[in-house]
């Protein structure tokens, strides 16, 4: 057990739980408070919250580990995709979906297409986000067992329940404010680490030379082209297809704040990746990849080598922050999918707001327990699992959502067929493994696009009221409903 690091990690967990308890009363006031923090978040807090929701275990540990194992161009592909997440989402959906006034992504599908599309989308959200908890829990288990000196299974259970507690208690309020803190810890931690590395090596140029001397293929493109392209596409779309990220827009005060928060998050994200660039170089220079059980542990080796224990503890808390701040947003998306989109909308329309938020709280705990059970024996490495979820959501959601905002002619039947065909094609490709890993959406997403368009054109156009709503999303008319 590493005592200093453990103490810092323990203090960090206590603070997060206290934030959850502090916001408990406010969050339970209404559904709007629990799922969207009362739509009151400003640009500064919103930027950190959006940044922290996207920056996950894969951004920090996965990108650096992948970069050291597969070369710097692999790390840069990761960065090339993720830095584009917020600009791309801003260009296509951020302001418009905030203007629609909905609380969840399936809510948007209900407003634009109707009940059947909403139910399918709620199921996709619940399945996709529950599966997405697994890599986050895996990462927390790896870090927890390393720092606390306990076995992996215990670490997954303890830390998994730890972040579930504050998220379930305080809903979007607690998640947003813990994300502000977690985003700051993550960024300060990695910038400090990069500073220590650069001072140690006497600058970036010397660091890259050391990395190339230790690992001569570090600068090479070592994988097939399709792996890089698939990775880029899956990340690029993440801000559009991942409900855990899209829900941040709903919490913003208005569409202008939603866009500015996305911009702020992009600037924070590029700082994270520039520091990550340095950490990747240091990981290659250390030449430890062959001796590690898991490539994701390179990051931890770099921390151990370059930082004194107290700063190392802060950086490890930063990694935990990255994991928790993404996992809590996923839990909220699952909770909203079951309590708001399925129960309140279709099972008991007269349910009180207090009951729905209570149900949301219970759903988070159940989803977390399911995630923990799977994470004890994870089905793949972190980067691959993350790629699967991103690909699944893109293949099913991506085009019905974007077309719903931009194309008046997109209708219910088209969206339903597009969503189901994309999801089924993706699952078949994963099971048959005819394409390289994580390249599945390159085929499945265009299938969804084509079928959404073809079926929409072949069937009846949406009613005028719905078509007017598309103008409203773009601020071209007043509210129509």
């Amino acid at each position, binding site marked *: 057990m590493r005592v200093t690091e453990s103490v810092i990690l323990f203090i960090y967990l206590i603070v997060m739980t206290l934030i959850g308890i502090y916001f408990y009363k406010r969050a339970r006031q209404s559904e709007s408070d629990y799922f969207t923090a009362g739509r009151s978040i400003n640009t500064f807090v919103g930027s950190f919250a959006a940044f922290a929701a996207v920056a996950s275990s894969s951004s920090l540990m996965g990108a650096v580990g992948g970069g050291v194992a597969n070369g710097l161009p692999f790390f840069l592909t990761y*960065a090339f995709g993720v830095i584009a997440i917020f*600009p791309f989402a801003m260009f296509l959906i951020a302001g418009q979906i905030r203007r629609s006034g909905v609380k969840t992504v399936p809510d948007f599908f209900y407003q634009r297409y109707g009940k059947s599309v909403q139910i399918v989308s709620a199921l996709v959200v619940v399945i996709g986000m529950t599966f997405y908890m697994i890599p986050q829990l895996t990462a927390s288990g790896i870090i927890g067992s390393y720092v606390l000196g306990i076995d992996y299974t215990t670490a997954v259970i303890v830390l998994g329940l730890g972040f579930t507690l504050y998220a379930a208690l305080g809903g979007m309020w607690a998640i947003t404010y813990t994300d502000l803190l977690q985003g700051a810890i993550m960024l300060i931690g990695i910038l400090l680490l990069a500073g220590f590395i650069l001072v140690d090596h006497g600058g970036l140029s010397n660091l*890259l030379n050391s990395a190339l001397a230790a690992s001569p293929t570090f600068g090479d*493109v070592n994988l097939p082209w399709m792996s890089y392209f698939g990775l880029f596409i899956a990340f690029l779309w993440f801000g559009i297809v991942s409900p855990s990220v899209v829900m941040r827009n709903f919490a913003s005060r208005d569409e202008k704040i939603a866009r500015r928060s996305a911009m702020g998050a992009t600037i924070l994200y590029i700082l994270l990746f520039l520091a990550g660039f340095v950490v990747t170089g240091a990981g290659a220079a250390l030449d430890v990849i062959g001796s590690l059980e898991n490539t994701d542990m390179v990051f931890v080796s770099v921390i151990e080598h370059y930082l004194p224990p107290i700063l190392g503890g802060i950086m490890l808390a930063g990694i935990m922050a990255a994991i928790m701040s993404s996992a809590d947003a996923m839990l909220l998306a699952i909770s909203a999918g079951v309590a708001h989109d399925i129960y309140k909308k279709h099972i008991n329309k007269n349910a009180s707001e207090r009951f729905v938020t209570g149900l949301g709280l219970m759903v988070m705990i159940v989803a977390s327990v399911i995630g923990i059970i799977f994470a004890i024996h994870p089905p793949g490495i972190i980067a691959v699992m993350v790629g699967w979820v991103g690909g699944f959501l893109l293949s099913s959601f991506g085009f019905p959502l974007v077309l719903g905002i931009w194309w008046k002619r997109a209708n219910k039947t088209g969206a339903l067929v597009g969503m189901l065909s994309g999801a089924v094609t993706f699952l078949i490709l994963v099971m048959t493994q005819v394409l390289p890993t994580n390249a599945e959406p390159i085929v499945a997403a265009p299938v969804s696009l084509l079928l959404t368009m073809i079926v929409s054109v072949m069937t009846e156009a949406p009613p005028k009221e719905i078509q007017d709503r598309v103008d409203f999303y773009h601020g071209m008319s007043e509210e129509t409903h």
Partner: protein
Amino acid sequence: MKRSKVKDPGIILTIVLAVYAALVFIWWPADVYLGGISLVGWLMFIGLFFWVLIGVIYVIWIEKLDQQQ
């Protein structure tokens, strides 16, 4: 006032983003090296700053359009 969706800043900048990404992935100069790192990597590195730039352009542009409206 109606604005054409084709001239929307979001659509125009999506095309700009797609053109740069296409340049990198179609050209794919994997065997050209600068400072020991493949040019593919450096093109992506430049792309990071380009993404931030077009993001800032979008926010300013759309807010100006909203004001005019």
